[in-house]
């Protein structure tokens, strides 16, 4: 299968496919980060996570429309940063509302959370369809994100892809720092490890739950925002990624952020490299199948947190 290509061509094919894989990796990581916090830390299955992400995408879409309609063209280039902040706070607020109205009643019944959030995702999808229409919408990229950057004469990488990757790295580091160093992060981990004890030392566990859930949803909003940079958004786009993302989180070892990043990297690279040689569907089937089989052999995932039960 390699015989038809020269060595230089092969190298550039691998480099470009690898880069395509890195963009997929960025989407996976951004989506999985929020999920890893909600699922890994709180044990809540949020099937509506994809819809929270799409909400972020729609917020970005609206912001870009507002910018191009009402504000001078000179600052259009910066709309994305405003959109991202808005997306974070709007999805986060919705997340807090959902936690307060639904999730907090179901902490003891994880399987039921799954069904309730699935219902929520159906409702959100239909709202998107009613408000924004069934067609996919896209944003106009500002000029500085257009075009591509030629590394050698055969390898070209799109600038928006680079931007999304840098964004992913920044957000991942921010989340990791927050979980390790900040007050909320420490409180979250304390509550996860021992809820009664955490409550006994004065941590308001309900508040921590709500903030954690809101944070996870907010990160999903940022993911959606970044997603508009590389693709268009439709009402059902979230559903396409949710199964993959759950696999990413589980494969990485649910409570480990490094594991999440590592597994997102493995899965996305495997998928996009194979996509070149096999049909897209077979590449996905093989990747997911391998992950499922590995998970059957090693259910705790790549990185697992050793914890006393």
């Amino acid at each position: 299968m390699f015989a038809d290509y020269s060595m230089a061509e092969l190298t550039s094919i691998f480099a470009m496919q690898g880069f395509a894989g890195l963009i997929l990796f960025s989407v996976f990581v951004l989506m999985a980060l929020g999920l890893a916090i909600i699922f890994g830390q709180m044990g809540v299955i949020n099937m509506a996570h994809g819809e929270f992400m799409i909400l972020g995408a729609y917020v970005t879409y609206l912001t870009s429309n507002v910018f191009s309609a009402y504000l001078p063209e000179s600052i259009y280039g910066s709309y994305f940063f405003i959109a991202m902040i808005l997306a974070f706070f709007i999805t986060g607020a919705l997340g807090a509302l959902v936690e307060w109205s639904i999730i907090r009643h179901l902490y003891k019944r994880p399987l039921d959370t799954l069904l309730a959030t699935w219902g929520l995702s159906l409702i959100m999808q239909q709202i998107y369809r009613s408000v924004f229409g069934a067609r996919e919408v896209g944003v106009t990229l500002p000029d500085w994100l257009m075009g591509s950057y030629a590394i050698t004469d055969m390898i070209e990488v799109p600038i928006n892809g680079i931007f999304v990757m840098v964004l992913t790295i920044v957000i991942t580091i921010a989340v990791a720092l927050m979980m390790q160093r900040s007050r909320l992060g420490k409180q979250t981990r304390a509550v996860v490890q021992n809820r009664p004890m955490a409550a006994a030392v004065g941590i308001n566990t309900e508040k921590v739950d709500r903030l954690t859930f809101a944070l996870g949803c907010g990160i999903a909003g940022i993911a959606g925002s970044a997603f508009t940079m590389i693709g268009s958004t439709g009402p059902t786009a979230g559903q396409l990624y949710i199964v993959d993302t759950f696999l990413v989180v589980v494969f990485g070892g649910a409570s480990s952020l490094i594991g999440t990043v590592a597994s997102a990297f493995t899965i996305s690279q495997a998928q996009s490299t194979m996509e070149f040689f096999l049909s897209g569907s077979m590449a996905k089937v093989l990747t997911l199948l391998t992950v499922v089989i590995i998970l059957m052999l090693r259910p705790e995932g790549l990185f697992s947190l050793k914890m006393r039960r």
Partner: protein
Amino acid sequence: MNKVGSFIGRYQLSHFIILALLIFVVMPLALDSFRLNMVGKYLTYAFVALGLVLCWGYGGILSLGQGVFFGIGGYCMAMFLKLEASSPENTAIQSTPGIPDFMDWNQLTELPWFWVPFQSFTFTIFAILILPAAFAFIIAVAMFKRRVGGVYFAIITQAIAAILTILIIGQQGYTGGVNGITDLRTLHGWDIRTDEAKTILYFVNGLLLFGCLFVARYIIKSKLGRLLVAMREREDRVRFSGYDVSAFKIFIFCAAATISAIGGAMFTLQVGFMSPTFVGTGPSIEMVIFCALGGRLAILGAVYGALVVNWAKTSFSESFPELWLFAMGALFIGVVMAFPNGLAGLYQTYIAPWLQKYVPEKFHWIITNRNPEESGAEIAVAGETASEDEKKSKAGELSHAGN
């Protein structure tokens, strides 16, 4: 009490009879053949819902991949029917006569090896019963022997449903792709597309459903059923009592798979095609709501749940298609939050006491069960009685397989 009554019980028996009257007398008399065929289609989903009552309601194993087994059953039947429909005479205009039309379109020149055995009807029946169970067995052994359960099992089964859908759609030449296997005509020369045939199939379907209901009832009433409930509530205690917990889970998961597959096969026969839209994650999770609405502990509730949800789906999508997803979403949230025991729970709490006022005391056994433990709403939902240990080990559940 006779032998049948011994595992059904007087109260349950009366409700079995009411359902039988509804399915075999009221529906055929009240509906035209088109609507009756549609009810028949809904009832095939009841098989899946029934399987979920067993493995989710009683076993505490939530599978989000029941569509896989429904699909395997359906595809096995569809493969047999398709081969019969693509006899060399029927397909003479193809470049390779004698193979299904979609294979010809995809430049296949001979029947793939895994299609060949489906020329035999006996093999097909065996495949419908054995194949899903075997597949379920592999999944279940891999998972339950390692003590993986709960949400992990749900996610893995969901992924399997997703994989199978992508595979079926991707391998168009072997599976018919996204359109599925269509244009099915005869079963052993008997045309299944006529109204008369559809009515007969409806009754066959009803009888099979009742067969499965009796089996389910028998399982629940047996010692196995008791153990399942015990396991769902306190798995460790059952294990410490010396039982092999995983064996019971594997058994009930396989049983649920086979029951779902029977439904799938009957679906193909009645509807006349099979496609990947009944296999994926969406339909699989929808099947869970049939069971949840009926009452996850009520085997008869599963039938009513499947009927009500699908009837509502059809009438909503006929008149207000945009409202259907709202209704469905609200149903998911409502069932989980407001009435976790589903219709069966509502019946026990509200309707039965109300009926009691108007029915002479002599007949109260029809309405309620004096032995509360036998009624549909016998046990609060698994999580509701969730143990203190479980609360403590919410994190523990995440590191589920630490051992």
